[in-house]
């Protein structure tokens, strides 16, 4: 892809690789994140998720490949003004007040001074720290630091926000708040790159996702593309002759557990046809249960396929 094509995307990487000495952290990462979408970057620990984000924000230099952020090559100083970033493991200056940390980042992000006050108040309110703006950061819990970090990432209405495990230190209320913040960001046209190993989080907020393992994208697409359009159906049947069972294989991959038959890869439209076929062959149907594959099922399956 040329740089001109990359301009229409929030993030684009082409064969991006990173090696630390002999350790390969990322090998040949190719992916695209569209503008104003919530993109989930999902992978097990050590898959190279944080390395990828660090390359995108210029904290580390790629060993090979190319990457563009908001249409500019990574590291471009001007583009960084339109970028918000919440690192995974970070700390702010403990001797500063929360409002001072935000003020420092307003200054570093080149925001017009006249708008700082409202930016800071807005950020504190969004992350639920309005009452703590005057307190020193050293007294903050890990969760509060993470909330402050999110507030810092939101300053100046960035076009792209990269969140690296944003809820790792948060309680359930905090996690819910973060999901709401991400939805609001999307509504106002901000692209969100969500780095996470929390499947439920990704499942609930992401438009598209990439599954990464050992530094490579192993699946990418919308949630339904990743999960597969066709679900599975479980049917409880008695009285079906063995030859009848065998003929049902044409509906999808069949798992025979005695009375329970599970058909995978079966389009929901064909369920009535299946039931009528079973009845015609002398079977008695007691239950028909559509089964949706969860992201966890699919994720584990993808990783297993990689191991083969």
């Amino acid at each position, binding site marked *: 892809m040329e740089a001109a094509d990359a301009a229409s995307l929030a993030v684009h990487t082409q064969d991006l690789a990173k090696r630390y000495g002999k350790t390969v952290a990322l090998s040949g990462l190719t992916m695209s994140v569209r503008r104003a979408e919530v993109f989930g970057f999902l992978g097990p620990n050590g898959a190279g998720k944080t390395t990828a984000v660090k390359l995108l*924000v*210029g*904290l580390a230099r790629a060993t090979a490949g190319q990457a563009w952020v908001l249409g500019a090559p990574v590291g471009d100083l001007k583009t960084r003004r339109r970028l918000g970033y919440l*690192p995974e493991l*970070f700390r702010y200056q403990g001797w500063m007040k929360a409002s001072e940390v935000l003020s420092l980042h307003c200054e*570093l992000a080149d925001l017009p001074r006249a708008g700082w006050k409202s930016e800071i108040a807005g950020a504190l309110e969004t992350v639920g720290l309005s009452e703590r703006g005057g307190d020193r950061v050293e007294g903050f819990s890990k969760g509060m630091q993470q909330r402050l970090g999110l507030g810092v990432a939101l300053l100046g209405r960035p076009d792209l926000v990269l969140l690296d495990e944003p809820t790792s230190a948060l309680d359930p209320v905090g996690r819910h708040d973060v999901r709401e913040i991400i939805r609001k960001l999307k509504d106002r046209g901000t692209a969100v790159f969500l780095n996470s190993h929390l499947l439920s989080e990704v499942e609930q907020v992401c438009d598209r996702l990439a599954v990464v393992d050992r530094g490579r994208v192993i699946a990418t697409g919308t949630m339904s593309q990743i999960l597969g359009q066709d679900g599975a159906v479980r049917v409880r049947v008695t009285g079906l002759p063995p030859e009848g069972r065998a003929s049902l294989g044409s509906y999808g991959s069949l798992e025979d557990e005695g009375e329970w038959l599970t058909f995978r890869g079966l389009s929901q439209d064909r369920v009535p046809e299946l039931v009528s076929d079973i009845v015609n062959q002398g079977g008695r149907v007691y239950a028909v249960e559509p089964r949706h594959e969860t992201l966890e099922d699919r994720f584990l399956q993808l990783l297993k396929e990689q191991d083969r």
Partner: protein
Amino acid sequence: MHMLTIARLTVLEASRRKLLLALALLTLLVIVLTSWGFSRLPTMKGVTPAEVRVAASQLTILVAFMFSGVLALGSTLVAAPSIASDIESGIALAILPRPIRRSEVLIGKWLGLAVLIALYAVLSGLLEMLGIQWATAYLPPNPATAIAFVAAEGIVLMTLALLLSTRLAPMTGGVIALVLFFVGWIGGIALGIGQAFQNSTIINIGVGSRLLIPTDGLWHGAIFYLEPSDFLAAARAAGRVRAGNPFFADAALPVPYLLWIVAWILILLVLANWSFARRDL
């Protein structure tokens, strides 16, 4: 302009972490105690004003040595963690993705630390000189230049620690900078002995050490401006007896050497920038 933001942040941090307050209180205590000590000199039995003057000039050099030591060690302790601990704690992860160059962070820190060092050297030096003058009526020939050299010694060591801080852990960088500081000091003594006995090998070792680590050279620059001319003449007449005395300087620092020190600081800053810019975080 972000460079000045980081410089301001560095000074603010020193103030908020009570480093400035602790230094100010301890320094004031030292100045009061030494001034009282100096005020005892003229009251000693049978002492002549000329003897008071000689004693005061020698003691002034020793007090200056103490301040230069405090400044050198303090500069190392503050500079060695400056970049390294920001990386270790993750503070750098939050700041560097902003539209700021790594060089601005580095030079900003250097600037902030240099201001702190200069401020401490000038204020403590000025107060100490005033205290000595009040106690003995003695004032060294050129205290302002001497203070400037002591400040420069701190800045040189801070620059070295800052360079090490771009790659090494705070502890490691700090220890290396301090070892080099003391090696430089011994190198200076070797140079004095080599010159007195005209041994070219020892002279070369001493000159090499002064070029590589200019802290001792600057210390000798400071001493020279604290020595009254009559004392200097008497010391020169003593010849070899004074060889290797780390509290005596025979001559002012030559201009090419001063230019080398400026170049040395610039070279180290360029190296530090290069090293920090290439570091993966």
